[in-house]
């Protein structure tokens, strides 16, 4: 009984091997040069698909993403630079289309925010450590110090660590 169940399970899992991995970018485009192909691949990885929003053009199967891949391919093979393609997209869809938005006044918080948070974190850590080291230092006056010295005078050499 147990044996049969295991067998069935094995068959079921082997069936999974037949499943083909899903692939989004299905078109195959031809390029004249290797640089063009590299530009194309870089661009579709960095441009956002506006329909699905959290995917780039390379990953998305939406109709618009296919059209935009076609557009990028045509622009790249007609000799336009990556910057020109990016300008083309930004003129139509705004900075939102870029997964790597440019540094501008409006995006300062976006770019600087993490460093600001890091600075705040470091500041808090420094303050915390300082306060702790100050609190752990013995808080005694001169007379008490003298008492301590007096008590320790007869103690064995304090430079040596106590033996266990």
């Amino acid at each position: 009984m147990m044996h049969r169940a295991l067998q069935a399970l094995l068959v079921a899992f082997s069936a999974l091997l037949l499943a083909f991995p899903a692939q989004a970018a299905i078109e195959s485009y031809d390029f004249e040069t290797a640089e063009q192909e590299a530009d194309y691949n870089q661009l579709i990885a960095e441009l956002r698909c506006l329909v699905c929003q959290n995917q780039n053009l390379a990953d998305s199967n939406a109709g618009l993403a296919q059209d935009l891949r076609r557009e990028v391919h045509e622009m790249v093979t007609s000799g336009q630079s990556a910057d020109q393609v990016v300008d083309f997209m930004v003129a139509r869809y705004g900075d939102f289309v870029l997964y790597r938005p440019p540094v501008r006044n409006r995006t300062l918080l976006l770019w600087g925010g993490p460093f600001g948070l890091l600075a705040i974190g470091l500041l808090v850590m420094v303050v915390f450590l300082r306060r702790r080291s100050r609190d752990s230092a013995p808080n005694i006056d001169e007379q008490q110090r003298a008492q301590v010295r007096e008590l320790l005078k007869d103690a064995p050499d304090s430079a040596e660590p106590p033996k266990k």
Partner: protein
Amino acid sequence: MGRFLLPLGGFALLVVLLGIGLTLNPREVPSPLIDKPAPDFTLQQLHDSEQTIGTTDMRGQVWLLNVWASWCVACRQEHPYLVELAKRDVLPMVGLNYKDKRNDALGWLRNFENPYDVSASDLDGRVGIDWGVYGVPETFVVDKRGTIRMKHIGPLTPKVIEQELLPLVEQLQGEAA
């Protein structure tokens, strides 16, 4: 007591920020085309492929461009409001039939009434790309000088038409060409 104030304050700030985030609509990407010249196009008319329609035909008047398709579910939702708007005859309405099949589009208009003065066939969606279309339906208002003055993404609602579109159209029609 005091030592809890800082984290509590930080948490409250975070809650407020996230709360504001929840009320925003991530689908509404601000269009860079507002106050820019409407991208030129000349396309075949949907009803008569012998004739063309384009931006130059609309010069000198305030007009509306509505991007629609027969495959678009949300278009059906806004359709009755477009029909109603067309009946008021406030401005010429051009349809941009986006990535559609001619027969499907014509059938759709026959079934649901045609609010457009004319529809342009954007079969391969290139004009749509020029206009930054990413979520059909979209609606643009273009002024007399050919500048895009409003863009609405998603289905029009009576509220948008009454409170945004019509007041803007009235203002634009008062402007000099």
